């Protein structure tokens, strides 16, 4: 491990030079990006090399979180090349996805114009294939016999250098792991897997991005991404409950917390506790549970659905964060687990949770799998268990933004297209007017909001503004052509990003909201029918 001195008074002049050089190369500079004019068209730009090479996220330098997460402190470790290759070797042996994707790309160019960051920034290194090529060059040089034998020149490889590290740190943090490129790739090469692996390697040598890892640290040690302590959560939820009781004038509507023996453990991103527009969805969830007459509870131990461990490919972190949900489910003796509106939370719960901890069948064999709140709500709507007054949403013409991790994640409702149909089914069930955005911007081809996978920090505002372009254009098209005036979302990051980007692009912030915000508006409370 690295020495924990941050000063460079040791005898290792070279290695300290390396650290100094890297720090110089990846120094954080605040860069502002201008929004473009919304024409409703998504134009593929001509390439502008290095146009976004200066946009880099901030490094995590605080010692305690680094130590707690088990990463080197004090920047780049002296023997970084060794550590780097060892880590990469380990990943190549553990992940077929990474190994194969580094191996079989034919550089056909099908993915080059599919990335929202490329469309926004025109930087050729933001083309998925060029991004992956940054890692592939190292792979060819150090992990193929040709590369070992002939050196980098003849295999189109790269030798390890501080410049290369800086390139990695720059461009692997301009990828939101949204997997859109993978849809169009003839072999299904998933740049997200490569980006995650690259981030894990960068972490191992001591280049740790601040935003994601601060959050992982909080999620592991405190239990949620915002670092709210137990009493703060209880206060926040009590406030939500008072607010609900006041506005609905129903005294027994509740937002339960840590209640043993409830039927449902509900996990949701902690942003839903007080961020706007997230909190509106929380009201929606509470109303749905109240009307359905199903007892539910949140947990202070598992107060967070989001799992940033996914973003950095780190199985250990991911598992540790996910474990809290399991522990809470056991503690509270619930029968089932339901997840709220959150993109990658859903992917971890639906795709990975079963692998990491097995099914939930020890809770209640009728509900062995975690459910998505949209599955739950749609089921209630279909059974007529909720009384809905659609006219409450008549002021809106709604469209839906498929969040990347949900749309390109895994099944919802047990069908191939469930993740598109179920949320839309919920919207149609509570709204009279629904319109879709253009076909190439929704469903499995959906564009990321521009801030997914740990790029939501204020330090990345430049890529956030540029990365939002495709979605903003698609929305403005739907707005102009179909009179759409509300964008329904099912992801906390999308809500945070787009509620900031809408005003940036001159559209009112109120046009963004969660699906359960709409549900909450349309539900007629107090009416009991169907159950």
């Amino acid at each position: 491990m690295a020495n924990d001195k941050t000063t460079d008074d040791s005898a290792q002049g070279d290695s300290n030079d390396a650290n100094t050089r890297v720090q110089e190369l990846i120094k954080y500079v605040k860069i502002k990006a201008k929004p473009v004019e919304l024409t409703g068209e998504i134009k593929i730009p001509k390439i502008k090399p290095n146009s976004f090479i200066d946009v880099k996220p901030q490094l995590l330098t605080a010692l305690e979180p680094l130590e707690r997460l088990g990463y080197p402190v004090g920047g780049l470790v002296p023997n970084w090349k060794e550590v780097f290759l060892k880590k990469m070797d380990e990943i190549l042996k553990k992940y077929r996805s990474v190994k194969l994707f580094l191996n079989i790309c034919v550089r056909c160019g099908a993915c080059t114009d599919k990335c929202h960051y490329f469309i926004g920034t025109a930087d050729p290194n933001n083309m998925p294939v060029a991004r992956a090529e940054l890692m592939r060059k190292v792979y060819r040089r150090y992990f193929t016999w040709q590369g070992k034998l002939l050196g980098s020149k003849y295999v189109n490889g790269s030798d390890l250098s501080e410049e290369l590290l800086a390139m990695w740190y720059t461009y692997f943090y301009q990828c939101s792991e949204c997997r859109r490129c993978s849809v169009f790739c003839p072999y299904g090469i998933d740049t997200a897997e490569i980006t995650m692996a690259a981030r894990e390697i960068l972490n191992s040598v001591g280049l740790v991005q601040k935003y994601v890892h601060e959050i992982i640290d909080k999620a592991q040690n405190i239990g949620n991404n915002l670092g709210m302590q137990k009493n703060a959560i209880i206060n926040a939820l009590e406030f939500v409950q008072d607010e609900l009781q006041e506005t609905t004038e129903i005294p027994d509507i509740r937002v339960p917390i840590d209640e043993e023996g409830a039927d449902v453990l509900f996990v949701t991103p902690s942003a839903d506790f007080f961020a706007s527009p997230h909190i509106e969805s929380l009201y929606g969830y509470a109303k749905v549970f109240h009307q359905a007459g199903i007892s539910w509870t949140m947990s202070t131990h598992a107060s967070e659905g989001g799992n940033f461990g996914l973003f950095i490919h780190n199985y250990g972190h991911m598992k540790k964060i996910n474990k809290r949900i399991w522990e809470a489910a056991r503690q509270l003796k619930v029968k089932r687990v339901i997840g709220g509106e959150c993109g990658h939370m859903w992917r971890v719960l639906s795709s990975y949770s079963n692998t990491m901890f097995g099914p939930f069948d020890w809770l209640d064999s009728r509900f062995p799998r975690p459910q998505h709140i949209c599955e739950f709500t749609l089921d209630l709507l279909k059974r007529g268990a909720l009384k809905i007054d659609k006219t409450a949403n008549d002021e809106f013409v709604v469209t839906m933004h498929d969040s990347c991790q949900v749309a390109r994640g895994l099944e919802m409702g047990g069908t191939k297209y469930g993740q598109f149909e179920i949320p839309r089914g919920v919207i149609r069930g509570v709204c009279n007017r629904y319109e879709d955005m253009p076909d190439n911007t929704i469903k499995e081809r959906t564009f990321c909001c521009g801030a997914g996978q740990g790029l939501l920090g204020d330090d990345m505002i430049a890529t956030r503004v540029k990365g939002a372009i495709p979605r903003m254009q698609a929305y403005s098209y739907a707005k102009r052509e179909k009179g759409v005036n509300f964008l329904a979302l099912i992801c906390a990051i999308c809500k945070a990003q787009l509620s900031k980007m809408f005003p940036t692009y001159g559209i009112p912030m109120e046009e963004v909201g969660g699906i359960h915000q709409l549900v909450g508006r349309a539900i007629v409370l107090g009416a009991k029918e169907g159950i």
Partner: protein
Amino acid sequence: MTGITFIVNMYMNAIVYVGCAVFALGFIYKVYCEYYKTPQPLKIPQTPQSTNLSGVIMRMAGDVLFFRSLSKGTTFLFITGWIFHFTFLLMIVRHLRYFIHPVPELITALGGAAMLLAGVLLVSLILLVIRRVLDERTAYVTSFADYLVLLVIIGIVFTGMLMRSEVYRPDIIAVNRFVLELFDIRAPLHMLGMHPAVAPGNVVFMCHLSLVCFLLMYFPFSKLMHSAGYFFSPTRNMVNNPRDVRHVNPWDNS
């Protein structure tokens, strides 16, 4: 046998054996040790993925036979690429007439359209090269290796077509005999005993075969492994049922 003929024969024997051996061993090594043996810890299928195995097989068949994923993204590349792969396959099938006796009717029937197909194949290859140069985004990521593969295949197709003309036509009987001799189980021993199989004395044929054997040797260590790799691609070959069927991660023992 003059000295020069002897050297040519030895060379022709050697490249065929080395080419086939390197291809077979390399291919098996790659597929078994690198793709099959490496675990896939998590389920990462890519929407739209079927929730049952038969649907997954159908999807992969669509990808393999009709390049469905590629067709979503780029029309020109999809059409040109598909024509190239399809006509190339027909050409390889057509070559089976040198190895199978008696020749099946299907292969004989291909003979009538062989020149046309080869022409289409050559044109599609040239279009792919031009596209690599002109499409600025693809050009940006294109490396020498990408051109090399295309040019080698162009060379193979071109020499193949050349041999159909009267001037450069090799003696078909000699070609057949050469192939049959190479197939003989004792042929490598003959070669080591300085009695190599007799190659047809035709320069174009030598070039054609040399390029083919080079491609075979190059195959396992290049991007050409996408042919086998696709079948191991976790975003395409995993069933979309992670909540119902537990996928076990072999290296997660905690």
